[in-house]
């Protein structure tokens, strides 16, 4: 039995909120530089150059990379030997968001009611996914999600007969009709299987993988590669101005599903692919 104080959780979450918004992962920077080298469109190359310049400014000036500092999303693995002490677990996370978004000069982008649209003022409540796992660790992954890319996401409940060709058609068309809206170059998170909600969740989880990492099953790894190639033939390019860099990667996650169902989800991610994790 291991005890973790809620104050430790709040402090950890506060730091995650700020770090994720100022400092982009090395894997994303490396991938952007590779695509910049190979981009055929002069405008496209210049746009990627400005994106890389922006990443340096965020790091050096300690300011948010994007003004949309995102809806706070957490993926938590709580070891079953852990005892949370001193307060409410979810409230500790929300307090960390509140403090992080205040002290980090991050934007408060959450409305309390979807029809009334009144801002909550502190970027809470967070969306918190918690898995209880063996062990005595607490792993907190923070992935703030911007509205622009999120709005280009979609779930489709296909007939099983649609098969792999159905997946390809859906994913490529989803990127094509998104155009410049999700701030290409994008990262395409794909979920296949699960229930309606699980499918969307695994599509989002796929975005937390190191950029360009492959699905361990060769069928899906090949599909990731094929989709990336076909998406980059669409011609949308950086910011939709035309070019060969429309997507930086496609990540696919799969889950068992009902014998009658074939859900497929795309969770679109922009190039400001922010996620940081800590193990307490």
């Amino acid at each position, binding site marked *: 039995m291991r005890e973790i104080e809620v104050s430790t959780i709040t402090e950890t979450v506060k730091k995650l909120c700020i770090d994720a918004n100022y400092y982009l992962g090395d894997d994303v920077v490396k991938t952007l530089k590779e695509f910049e080298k190979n981009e055929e469109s002069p*405008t496209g190359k210049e746009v990627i150059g400005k994106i890389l310049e922006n990443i340096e400014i965020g790091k050096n*000036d300690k300011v948010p990379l994007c*003004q949309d500092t995102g809806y706070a999303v957490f993926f938590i693995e709580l070891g079953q030997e852990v005892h949370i002490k001193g307060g409410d677990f979810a409230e500790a996370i929300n307090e960390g968001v509140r403090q992080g978004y205040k002290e980090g*000069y*991050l*934007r408060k982008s959450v409305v309390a009611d979807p029809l009334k649209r009144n801002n909550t003022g502190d970027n809470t409540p967070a969306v918190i996914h918690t898995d209880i796992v063996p062990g005595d660790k607490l792993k907190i992954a923070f992935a703030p999600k911007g509205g622009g890319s999120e709005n280009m996401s979609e779930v489709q409940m296909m007939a099983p007969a649609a098969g792999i060709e159905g997946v390809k058609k859906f994913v490529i068309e989803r990127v094509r009709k998104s155009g*410049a*809206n999700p701030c290409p170059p994008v990262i395409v998170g794909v979920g296949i299987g699960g229930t309606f909600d699980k499918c969307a969740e695994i599509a989002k989880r796929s975005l937390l993988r190191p950029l360009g990492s492959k699905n361990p099953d060769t069928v899906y790894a090949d599909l990731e590669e094929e989709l990336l190639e076909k998406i980059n033939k669409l011609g949308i390019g950086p910011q939709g*101005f035309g070019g060969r860099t429309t997507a930086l990667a496609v990540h696919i996650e799969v889950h068992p599903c009902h014998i009658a169902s074939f859900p497929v989800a795309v969770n679109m991610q922009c190039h400001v692919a922010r996620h940081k994790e800590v193990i307490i």
Partner: protein
Amino acid sequence: MSNIKKITTPLTNETIEELKIGDSVFITGIIYTGRDSAHKRLIEALDKDGELPVDLKDQIIYYAGPAPAKPGNPIGSIGPTTSYRMDPFAPRLIEYGLKGMIGKGNRSQEVIEAQKKFKAVYFGAIGGAAALMAKSVKKAEFVAYEDLGPEAIRRLEVVDFPVVVVNDAFGGDLYKIGMEKYKKI
């Protein structure tokens, strides 16, 4: 990119007619921020009083909701938000006299037609390069709807604010042309 065209505000029809899709432009002068909720209120004001709380004739609106400014900085990170959400409101404002819009993402046919009819330009700013965009903003102040926080109308003084012409006043569309040029079936 081709040579950079430098323009100042307020915009004249003459300036607008010289801008073509794909042009890199540096804007120096005043631009006004406004997005979803502010646009809703602006149209309500037009309907009710025929007037706006801010004189937008010959001006440029930047679809943006900035992050809070750190002490000592005039503005926080301020990249564009997605423009299609403002499509229901834009034609009325263009008819009223708005001459420029800055955002990202494609516009509706109604907006493009209004741009042709009344002479207005739609510029694209680089989404996600928000810290870089903030460097061009020298001064910022609330001018309307301060209660909307990030969605308020702010008056920004900008120098060499970098944008690209996406829809000119002649019906041209950079997103269509760009994609055609680089797509491989």
